[in-house]
């Protein structure tokens, strides 16, 4: 499995008060190939100073969680446009709990109907960004809500 990683060499804004750069896994779960949004957000977060690891396409929840733990990330941003969000998000959260890594913040984006959003939030997804969200809104949210894990 391949992952690409990158962080802006000059960026400092992703560094929290505790001194370590926040690390984010941008994950593309599901079988579809809609990676435009995931790549744009990965690049925007990197340019904002975060360390970003991108899983590439066609990841299973198991693969996403494995990478998140190996890479010791602080948050997982999952992009889902295949309609499988009601399976994929809860499964990722479940696996994180099983692995004792449920302090990793899970957020996401994609085509997710309004009526599914509340249930996914209740299940533990901290934020869901739907079409029309600016990259700045996502950056601001991550800055406010993701801290380096202890």
């Amino acid at each position, binding site marked *: *499995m*391949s*992952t*690409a990683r*990158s962080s802006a060499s000059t960026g400092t804004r992703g560094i929290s008060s505790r001194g370590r750069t926040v690390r984010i896994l*941008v994950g593309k779960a*599901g*079988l*579809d*190939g809609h*990676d*435009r949004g*995931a*790549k*744009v957000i*990965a*690049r*925007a977060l*990197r340019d904002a100073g975060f360390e*970003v690891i*991108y*899983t*590439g*396409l*066609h990841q*299973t929840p198991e693969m996403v969680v494995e990478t998140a733990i190996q890479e010791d990330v602080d948050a997982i941003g999952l992009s889902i446009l*295949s*309609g*499988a*969000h*009601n*399976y*994929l998000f809860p*499964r990722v959260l479940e696996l994180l709990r099983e692995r004792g890594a449920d302090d990793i913040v899970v957020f996401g984006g994609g*085509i997710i*109907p*309004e009526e599914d959003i509340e249930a996914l939030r209740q299940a533990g997804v901290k934020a869901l960004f*739907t*079409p*029309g969200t*600016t*990259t*700045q809104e996502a950056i601001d949210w991550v800055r406010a809500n993701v801290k380096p894990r202890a």
Partner: protein
Amino acid sequence: MRRFVTVSDMEIDELYTQETLDAAGWDRTRDLGRPGAFPFTRGVHPTMYRGKLWTMRQFAGFGTPEDTNRRFKLLLAEGQGGLSTAFDMPTLMGYDPDHPRARGEVGKEGVSVASLADMEVLFGDLPLGEITTSMTVNCTASIILAMYLAVAERQGTDWGRLGGTVQNDMLKEFIAQKEWICPPEPAVRIVVDMIEYCTERVPRWNTVSISGYHIREAGATAVQELAFTLADGIGYVQACVDRGLDVDAFAPRLSFFFDVHNDFFEEIAKFRAARRMWARIMKDRFGARNPRSMMLRTHAQTAGVSLTAQQPMNNAVRVAVQALAAVLGGTQSLHANAIDEVLALPTEETARLALRTQQILAHESGVANTVDPLGGSYFVEALTDRMEREAMAYIERIDRMGGIIKAIEEGYPQKEIADSAFRYQQQVERGEQVIVGVNRFAVEDDTPLPILKVDESVERKQADRLAEVKRRRDASAVRRRLDDLRQACEGRANLMPALLDAVKAYATVGEISDVYRAVFGEYRDPGHF
């Protein structure tokens, strides 16, 4: 100072005149010509829509084969001229509905097809010899086409009467849509096998729909869409010529598929430039002699990526403008998007509105009354010319890299597209590109549309049907057929006969794809961003 640019960030002059064309060396006889004649700038037919309207072909598919069969019949009853099939992600990636990787995705983005049993239901009671069927499927296209041929055979329809298209454009999968099984080289070998087989056995079938749509939707500019699509076309033609096929035997059955975005004139110019470029490429580069080999026949779809979740009714206007551009650009068939496609698959009501949009253009607007009504417009001709020039520069660069497969392996088109997508997003966020209802004229409380929900029971139903098929089929025959297929893959024989035998024995999409995976290996996303 304010810049006047297209949605692709191409700068537009205040006024275009004869002097603009003269300065670019534009020549009426050489560059424009007559409709139905080389270089086909004005259209592929001499009479265009006076002779035959474009085919209204709405893309449809969801849930079980029964669900989609019902939607097909509804669309045909509403006056649609041909079918266009959307398959679900597991079918498109070569996994059966009971595979762990299919969890949550069965029937969601299209119809679920695992074996010939599903295909028999999907096309049940449909007159396959009279309608044309387009199927959007790529890395599993060879399997799905074999199933379609088997269904036709069982319905007693001669293959010579079958008309339709499989998308089957693997090169753009690696560039943009990103559904794949094996790496580029074997993927193209399978495509060439299908071209070779159909040229002889299914002569009216369009073997590849060389697609810019997904390239554009992934973020390419109009020029990049044009360039990478034609570069893919060159890749296929070269691969077939290398196989020893006569260019004039297979090239007339290659067709194209472009996106139609918001920028009205840029889109019209793109279609015109595409026709002229392909005609020149086929004649000059490949030595084609049959004019049909030089004709770029195309399907078009309005730009899904241009639709907004905010104030979704506005999408009806976007779709109408884009559909009009496709018609003025001279498309042969068209899918108009439904206003809710940014949220979900269309409901019956929104699917009907999309079809009605096309019918209003065809029967009320008067734009189909004459051929290429914009031909000779200083602006349209200058833009057509410029797009050809800029797209050719990309193609020359790809040639210098050693061709499109090499360019893809180096990630070149992928990176160009990702850069354009990011640049566009920044322009939107700075307000330099206006999206009505999103970054201008937004409202606080939006009225949501009722959307189509795919029944969660589809996954179980499809897994149950698959289990039933596996119980009833002759397991040892399936094993033998899959072994034969494996040998064909390992050798150089055309795969289609072995595929037909395998699907007729009810071998599944997943089982056949496993043979591909075992013999050819699996491609992985390099994951650059």
